[in-house]
């Protein structure tokens, strides 16, 4: 298909999406339904080729994993079969009589990920942060960092009412939070505006050739 046709299709769909700024309308509905449908099909293919095929279908049915042959009944084969069966059991939810079976793989999935995540999270998000913030109070920056951290942690302390010293520390914490949010807001808005500029450039330059 010629490039101009594809560019025109993309430009028209962009305008359909932007028509939402006025109000809901058939053009926006069309673009919305199109992208939802296309993304569903796209992700189905992506998930099959990136996850199901290499981890389940190829090892179980074709005895291949990562480009290498594996043995039928071997450890790698079982490591593909068991999760594959658990995944299939999720579909029992479509049969009311057997729907309770689908809770087991779900429980294994959620529990497994939660359990596996505890140690790395404790190390990376607690331990390393504590070490990094136990800094000498020899500069204004260091003092602000430590005070802000203690204040913020105090704000998220739910076991006591925020009164007295605790209330004061919590108020310091919320101030630090809001300053941080403001900076993050401004930074993100800048990046969103740059995305808008990119899209307008696409319309004016790539599609209409009004600018270079």
């Amino acid at each position: 298909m010629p490039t101009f046709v594809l560019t025109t299709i993309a430009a028209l769909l962009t305008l359909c999406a932007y028509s939402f700024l006025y109000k809901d309308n058939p053009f926006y509905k069309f673009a919305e339904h199109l992208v939802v449908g296309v993304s569903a099909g796209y992700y189905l293919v992506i998930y099959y080729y990136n996850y199901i095929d290499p981890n389940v279908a190829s090892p179980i049915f074709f005895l291949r994993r990562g480009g290498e042959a594996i043995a039928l009944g071997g450890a790698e084969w079982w490591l593909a079969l068991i999760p594959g069966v658990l995944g299939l059991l999720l579909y029992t939810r479509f049969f009311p009589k057997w729907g309770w079976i689908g809770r087991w793989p779900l429980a294994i999935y959620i529990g497994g990920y939660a359990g596996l995540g505890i140690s790395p999270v404790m190390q990376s998000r607690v331990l390393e942060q504590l070490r990094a913030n136990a800094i000498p109070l020899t500069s204004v920056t260091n003092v602000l960092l430590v005070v802000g951290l203690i204040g913020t942690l105090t704000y998220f302390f739910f076991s006591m009412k925020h009164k007295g010293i605790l209330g004061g520390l919590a108020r310091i914490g919320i101030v630090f939070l809001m300053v941080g949010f403001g900076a993050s807001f401004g930074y993100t808005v800048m990046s969103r505006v740059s995305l808008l500029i990119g899209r307008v450039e696409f319309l004016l330059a790539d599609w209409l050739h009004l600018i270079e």
Partner: protein
Amino acid sequence: MRATFPSLAVLITVALGAAPLCAQVAEPDSLLPVDTDPPAAPSNLAAIDLITNNDAGDRIAITWDLSPDDGAGAGDVIEYHIWRSETAGSRGDTLAVVAAGTSQHVDAAAEPGTPYYYRVASYDGTNRSTDATVGPVAGRASFFQPTRASVLALMATFFGLVLLFTRLAQRGSELFVRRIPGLNAVEEAVGRATEMGRPVLYVPGIGEIDNIMTIASLTILSHVAKITAKYETPLIVPTARSVVMSAAEEVVKEAYAEAGRPDAYNPDNIRYLSDAQFAFAGAVNGIMLREKPAANLYLGAFWAESLLLAETGFEAGAIQVAGTAMVSQLPFFVTACDFTLMGEELYAASAYLSREPKLLGSLKGSDWMKVVSITIMIVGIIMNLVGVDAFLNWFQVQ
């Protein structure tokens, strides 16, 4: 004679011109003094069983002090030779040759349980020093990794606190949790939707089921579903992940059954829309404009689509309560929503709303873990000030 004179002149000229060149040409090797001095040997050779993650006992760390002639002294050391043997007194096979300036090497091919003897010598290109020797040392598979003892200690402390407070809650002890304004707004929002006869829209984020924010969101969804079941208010739950949809269906169905209204449960209201971020956002915007929910609850993991959802909901006139631990999205929710649960308030919400002992126990446990963390940090700062590094070094994970 005449014929040879020019030739002689040329020869003499060439010889005169070439003389300086000849002076620069290296003398034959046989004329250079031979380096017969071996470099000084490395010292303090040590070998220990290296304990790493999933340790199989097959790694031995070898360390030594640099030869005095490495970068100093004679300055002629170019490399170190390392040998490994299974018998004392024998040099064995060459394990590795490492460059000058290197003072450690890992033998990654050791047989667990086999004692080895190591020798290291410095080499200057001609001569080798005497060998430094160490051994026997054997690698052993290690069940416990001592360098991660601090992680274990913190986890044990945390689990202990959670179990303690869970037990206290189960025994009926009153565990105080301070008022969180945004959480009271959740029930008000559902009440408003019931009065207006319009649905409640609950968006559990676009995180996968293994995302802790999604799990917290599903816990709050259970509470919200019980309220909507009681008041017969339609509850719409759009999801961006198929497994999250499955989990949400289970949660809502069970909540309706617990509220005594299993007949009111409508599985068509739990919808999988799209895995694509902005396709999901577009579809949720469409739901907001067409089905006109009176209350929008955004609780979970959100990324760039957060402002799209919140702004559209604001334009549609719905009361909005948001909650996420995504720091980059909190500013947008704070700006566009009526109430926002920030960070840990989202995780506290499930315990606050349901008052279940296990959830209360984990909330209180994490609260007091914050106290432990602040204490460790303050002690670390004080130790840092007085120049004691051992305390913080213990928390260094290798």
